[in-house]
Each structure stands twice: as structure tokens, then as C-alpha cells.
């Protein structure tokens, strides 16, 4: 794979860091400043200033062609797997409280296996079915840690 410049990524990071630093100045400006509580704005302002400075250097380096390189670009099947994994993990967070651990994890493992290229359906369904039940039993009975019951409330 041909090395790829991180120029675009570095510019994006620099553009994200600038508003974050400015927000730190804005919010910490509203804090109380009594000496008895040890100058609470000093360190946040110091960190935000350093971050602004660093973002500036990053931007200048990226624009002047001195960004570091990546071994290869994330593309094609690799990118689709990553996006699929991220979407599944995000959906898991939203759905687990509603449907419960066992049902959500079953579908998570099923779809995740498909994302990773598993096409042996019997193995996939067995793995997706047995794993959440086993984990639920271990957590509920041995570790005494409740997992979201969802529909089984």
C-alpha cells in the first residue's frame, strides 16, 4: 500500500482544537476567581493556550507539506468493516436498554459476524445465541451483576 499523507486529518484536528480552546477561555471566564480557591482559571487558560499554539503549529506543518504519512489509506472492505463495527456498537448503546442484553447481544453478534465476513450461518447463529445466554448466566448468578433486562423486565 502506498503511504498516504495525514495532511487532511491534521488540518481537521487543528480546526477542531481551535473552537475547543476558545470555549475553554469562554467558560472559565465565568468561574469565580477568589484567591482562597487558588486561581481556578490559571491552569485551564494555560492548557487552552498551549493547545491553540499546538493546533497552529499542526496547521502550519500540514499546509506546508510537512505532515507525517500513514502506511496506507483506509479504504474498501477495511473501511466498510470499521464503519459497520462503529454503527453496530453505537446502535447497541441505544437499543440495549429497550430490548435487553440477551436480544440485543444476539443481533449484535449476528450482524457483527456478517460484517467480519463470516458466512457459515449455522456457526454464526449458534455463536450469537449461546454467547449472550452464557454471559447473562455468569453475570447474574456468579458475579451478581445485573445486566439490562429490557423486554424481560
Amino acid at each position, binding site marked *: 500500500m502506498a503511504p498516504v499523507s495525514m495532511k487532511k486529518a491534521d488540518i481537521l484536528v487543528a480546526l477542531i482544537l481551535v473552537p475547543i480552546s476558545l470555549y475553554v477561555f469562554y467558560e472559565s471566564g465565568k468561574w*469565580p476567581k477568589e484567591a482562597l480557591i487558588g486561581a481556578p482559571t490559571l491552569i485551564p487558560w494555560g492548557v487552552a493556550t498551549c493547545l491553540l499554539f499546538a493546533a497552529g503549529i499542526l496547521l502550519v506543518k500540514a499546509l506546508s507539506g510537512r505532515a507525517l504519512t500513514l502506511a496506507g489509506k483506509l479504504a474498501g472492505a477495511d473501511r466498510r468493516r470499521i464503519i459497520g463495527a462503529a454503527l453496530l456498537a453505537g446502535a447497541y448503546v441505544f437499543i440495549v436498554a429497550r430490548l435487553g442484553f440477551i436480544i440485543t447481544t444476539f443481533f449484535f453478534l449476528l450482524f457483527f459476524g456478517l460484517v*467480519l465476513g463470516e458466512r457459515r450461518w449455522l456457526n454464526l447463529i449458534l455463536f450469537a445465541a449461546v454467547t449472550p445466554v452464557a454471559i447473562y448466566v455468569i*453475570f447474574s448468578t456468579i458475579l451478581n451483576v445485573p445486566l439490562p433486562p429490557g423486554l424481560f423486565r
Partner: protein
Amino acid sequence: MVDLALLAKGFATVLSGYNLLALIMGSFMGIIIGAIPGLTATMGIALLVPFTFGMNPITGIVMLLGIYTGAIYGGGIASILIKTPGTPAAAATVFDGYPMAQKGMAGKAIGIATVASGIGGTFTALCLTFFAPILANFALRFSAPEYFALAVFGLSVTVTLAGRSPLKGFISGAVGLLIAMVGLDPIGGFPRFTFGMVELTGGFSFVPMLIGLFALSEGFRQVETILTAPKVKAVLTEILPKLRELKGLSVTFIRSCVIGLIVGITPAIGAETSCFVSYSEAKRTSKHPELFGTGILEGVAAPQTAENASTGGDMLPMLTLGIPGDAATAVLMGALTIHNLQPGPLLFRDHSELVHQIFGGMIVANFMFVILGLTFARFFARVINIDRRCLVPMIFIACMVGSYSINNVLYDLATCVFFGFLGYLMIRYDYPVSPMVLAQILGAMMESNFRRSLVMSRGDPSILVTRPIALTILILAAFTTITAIRRQRRALRAQAGMQ
């Protein structure tokens, strides 16, 4: 000084029933985690911390120590068998370990690696046992200005020594400092950067964030490279090393132990650095340096000894000063905090019995992985062939379940997933993750002690530079930062010159 009676009692506690079982399980899991490329010791500890909540503090801690030491050692197995380090700490073992496997000596390589790791780890566990109480006693003299200076020193080393780019290490550390400020002000009690969210008044949940940054992010990386995992084909014979072979390596063991200890003690650098330093030194001082890289015992013994020797060194600043030696000990700190144990000199004063149990646990853990490694070498070799399409989803589920199980709130699960994806993006685009985590721990320490110092001196900042110990540490921090930046600029210029 170490209390020998308490130490004996500590050994007795660690070797008794449930604790010993936890240690064996931890070592076993640690070796498996280390042996599988892509899974790290830090990840293993982060994943298993939530599962230790319901345990007695010492039971949970010895299990995590077993994982820590076992995983650092286990990385060498993959280095030898498939030319891919199981953990970053085992990278230097590839140079001679894999050639030995190619010559049909895989079993001998693994045997030497196992014993070497055990020697290194035991040496520094003993150093930890005898030196930690002395350092903790000295640290009792520290006040807010000294702790501020220590935090600055730790931060300076953390951000300058991580990754290819000091600038990106600095950005990672600075973002970590900002993350540490989210929540209630430690002295004034007013909310900071909470955006009105009740969940953020306590800051970001630390352990779910650790699980996300160190474990889930690796899960995403495994998703990226899932199709390229190599398989083990070697047959293991003659695993147990001969006594004369070990005697012939005695100088290598001693030198590598010292290197591992010194590197381990330095905050933010650990086994990943010590293995290379030790290998380079072994080659430089050898009568036959041309043999290094062709498959010789010394080439395996040197890095393996140093990498496990780093573990005791990394534990030393963490236990005595509350400054993590590396990312793995940062997570161990999180585990101690969950059991209401704050690392630092007061831990030695108020929980002396537990501290000696930890010493006992470290020493026994280093024997345990040697016994397990030599006995089950063939099993661990086969574990490397585990189907990643089963393993990776299990990593995701373990991360998410582990995060949820801490407080039974979905907010923790969301924190884990958010930081998991952020951690993956950071690794992908060369922003080291360790400075962000270490900066959160050290940043909180730096800020609270800075402000306490100002309160002590009624607003006069000269208190930070007029106390001799604090001033010495600050000068050391400045010197370390300047030296590290100059060294890295030289290395980058040399690299650019070669291209």
C-alpha cells in the same frame, strides 16, 4: 524498610485458596491475551478490572497482577512462532526468536523466553519490595508543591516520549488535561465543562474510558486487520531449558534486569522501550554481535528479561507516589482506586498489610507464569490460531458489558464506545493514547496541588520554586523535556535523510 513479618504474612495470604486460584486464572488469561497479536497487557487489565469489583481487594489485585505479568511475557510466544509480537513489549524478541523457530528450535526459544521473563520479573518484584517502602517514607515529606512538581515531571516525560511526533503527543496530553477538568472544581466545588449534564458532574467515568481507549480501540484495530492474521505451524519440542544454557546467559540476565528496572521506573516508558534497549546492549557487548538476528539464545533472553523486569519498575512510582510508570500501571491505579485505595505514600502508612500482600502477589505472579508457560506451552501456541471472527466480537461485548457492570448505567457504556472509537482514530492518525490517559491522572494531581500550593502561600507562586525538592524535580522535568525533544528531532532528521 520492608517489614519481613508482614511480607511473610502477605505471601501466606496470596498463596491461600481463593487468592491463589485468582492468581492462577489471571496468569493463564494474561498469557493468552499476550500471545494473541493485537491484544495488549493494558487491554487485558482494562477489560478485567470491572470483573474484580465484587472480589476482595487483594484477590482482585493479584488477579490483575497475574494478567499484567503474564501478558507481558506471553507476547514473546507470538514473536517466536509467527514473527508478529503478541504485545508491543515483545517486538525485539522477533529478531532472534523467529529465526530460532525457523531452525526447528521453537520449543527451546519459548523455554528460554519463559525463564528469562521470570528472572527479570522476579528481580524487579524483589527490588519493588525492598525499595518501595524507603521511597514511600521519603515521599511522606512531600507536600503540595512537591506533588505538583512530580506531576509536571511525569507529564513532561509522558508527552515527549510517546509516538513518532512530540507535537501529537503534546496535543494528546493537553486534551487529556482538559478531560481531567470536566466535573466539579476540586476546591471551589462549582461545575466545569459539564454542559448542564448531571452525568458529567463527576467527570467522565474513568474505568469505562480506560476500557474504551485501551481495549475497545484495539478491537476496532483488529476489525481493520482481521483478514491478515498469520497461523502457527511450528512443532514445539525441548521446551525446558538446560542448566548450562541458563548459566551461559547469566550476564545477559543481570544486565537486562538492571536495564528493565531503570526504564520501568521512568514514568510513561515501559516494556516496549526496555526490550529494544536490552537487545541493543546485549548485541553491543557481545563477543559475536554478528550472530544476533540469526537465532541465538542471547537474542531472546535479553529482551524477554528486560520486558518483564520493567513491570516491577513501573509499579514502583505508581505505588509510592501515585504516578503511573506506564499505561498498564495507570489502569492498575484505576483498579486500586475502585477498591478505595489511593496509591501514594499514605497507602504504605494506612494499608501496610495490603501493600505487603501486593509485594507477595508480584513475586508469586512471576513464578506462576513460568510454571504455566513451561507446562502449557503447546496450548498457548495453539491459542494464537483462534478465529478472529469469534474473538473480535467477544472483545466488543466484554468491553461493553464490563463498562456497564461498574455502575449499571448506560452512560458508562456510551462513554466506553465513544472513547473506544476516539482511541481507534487517534491510533490510526498517530496520536498516542497513553499521554491522554496519563495526563488525566497527572493533570488532576498537578492542578489540585498547584492550587493547594497557592492557598498555602496565600497566592504567592514562588512557593513552587523555593522548596528545594520541588525545584530539583522541576529542573529535572525541564532537562528531560529538552533532551527528549532534541533526541526525537535528531531521529526524525536522520529518518528523513535516509528517505
